[in-house]
């Protein structure tokens, strides 16, 4: 905490900027978006290709699905890394975490199975069918439930959220140096300030 940049000072050189890089942010929330976007895009492209008989859209759906299967490997591995860092006490949050972890691998099994199905369709020169679209919709539904569980873990229970941030430098030059504070202490200090003004 001795570096000026960490006390809210200005970054004046590239070296100082480089020294701030810690790569401490959790990677799982980054990769989940690839899984969600690519799987959803695959369903959307395939459905549009099926209804409007557009081969280019169907091809895009296939490649998006393959991309989802590849990227989900990174999602799974970073998820496991996140889970090993999450010190969650026994209770609701851990129940959500357990369900999220179990469903993650089940979703990946479904994804791999449907990728193989899709590749066999492509190899035999067949287009997607109603049955395939329904199966992909089920996979997307499982992914939605999985995403919801993950969202609850972060936004309701704050798993892997540091709950501390640096205050903006105050306008008053005489004000004390900004420090890392928790959101709770921010609300307490704001309340105290308001009470002081009212008095």
């Amino acid at each position: 905490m001795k570096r000026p940049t960490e006390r809210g000072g200005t970054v004046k050189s590239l070296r100082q900027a480089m020294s701030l890089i810690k790569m401490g942010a959790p990677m799982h929330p980054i990769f989940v978006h690839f899984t969600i976007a690519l799987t959803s895009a695959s369903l959307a492209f395939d459905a549009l290709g099926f209804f409007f008989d557009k081969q280019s859209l169907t091809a895009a759906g296939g490649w998006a699905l393959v991309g989802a299967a590849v990227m989900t490997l990174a999602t799974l591995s970073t998820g496991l890394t996140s889970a090993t860092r999450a010190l969650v006490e026994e209770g609701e949050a851990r129940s959500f975490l357990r369900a999220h972890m179990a469903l993650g691998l089940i979703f990946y099994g479904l994804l791999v199975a449907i990728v193989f199905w899709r590749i066999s369709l492509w190899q035999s020169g067949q287009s997607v069918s109603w049955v395939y679209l329904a199966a992909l919709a089920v996979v997307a539904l499982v992914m939605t439930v999985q995403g919801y569980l993950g969202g609850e873990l972060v936004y309701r229970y704050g798993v892997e959220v540091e709950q501390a941030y640096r205050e903006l430098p105050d306008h008053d030059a005489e004000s004390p140096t900004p420090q890392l504070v928790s959101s709770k202490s921010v609300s307490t200090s704001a309340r105290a300030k308001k009470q002081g003004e009212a008095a």
Partner: protein
Amino acid sequence: MTGTLFIGLYPFQWIALLSALMTLLLLADALAGHYRSGFAFRVQYTPFISGGLLIIAAVAAAVAPNVTWLNKTLRGAGWLAVASGLIGFGFHHYYGIAKKPGGYKWLLHYLMYGAPQLAPLALAIVGALALLAAQGLAGGARVGGLSIRAALLALVSGALAGAILQATILHYRGAFNNPAMYALLTAPLLAVVASAWMVVAPNSLMLFVLTILLWLTFLIGFVGLGMHLRGYERQMGGLYVLPFNLLEGPPACAPALFAGFSAVGLIAVRLL
């Protein structure tokens, strides 16, 4: 090479890769189990030598299927894995049951809490799978009087039967505390019967049924992986104390063998 190309690879290249992958998963569980017992005997390092060779040989043979010496190496590694698996079975039986206090009188106890009796046979099975892959890569069509497809299905049937038996004992130890623990007694068990049926009396209806059952078994493998991961998280400290819970919890990679062997079965029924 025989069979239909799938994503640029022939069926026996896929089977060689699958045998490498399954060996890797087996070794991961063996490492946890043998480390837990403190590698009390030097012979406990054997599966890592024979299994490691099998992984290298299988990947190399899949990458260069037309190189004769690589095919011979795969056969050698396959036989070595079969031998070490059978020897391991003997060791697990002797040190896990026979030599324990009470011995066979405490059979059920040692089946549940001793060394997993059928686990070393899984190494023998992947060794046999590598031998079939080598035979197929060399263009062989028959093994021991059976067509190579029937031989693969017979192997899948035996492998799944062994995996179900071992897992049922361990799930019984876990008191089937979750309904999902019964999953291995559903589609995988029927897949064992259907695979054996296809070996003895192949027909199109049974082929269709077997394909469905193998896909379900493939998915159940992933369900098992997820639920075993959940099993670690249920223990004190969960994944936060991963090394400890990895040793004390359910075998991490074992359910993947259901997916792996069903994938071999699917290759046999769809691509050969």
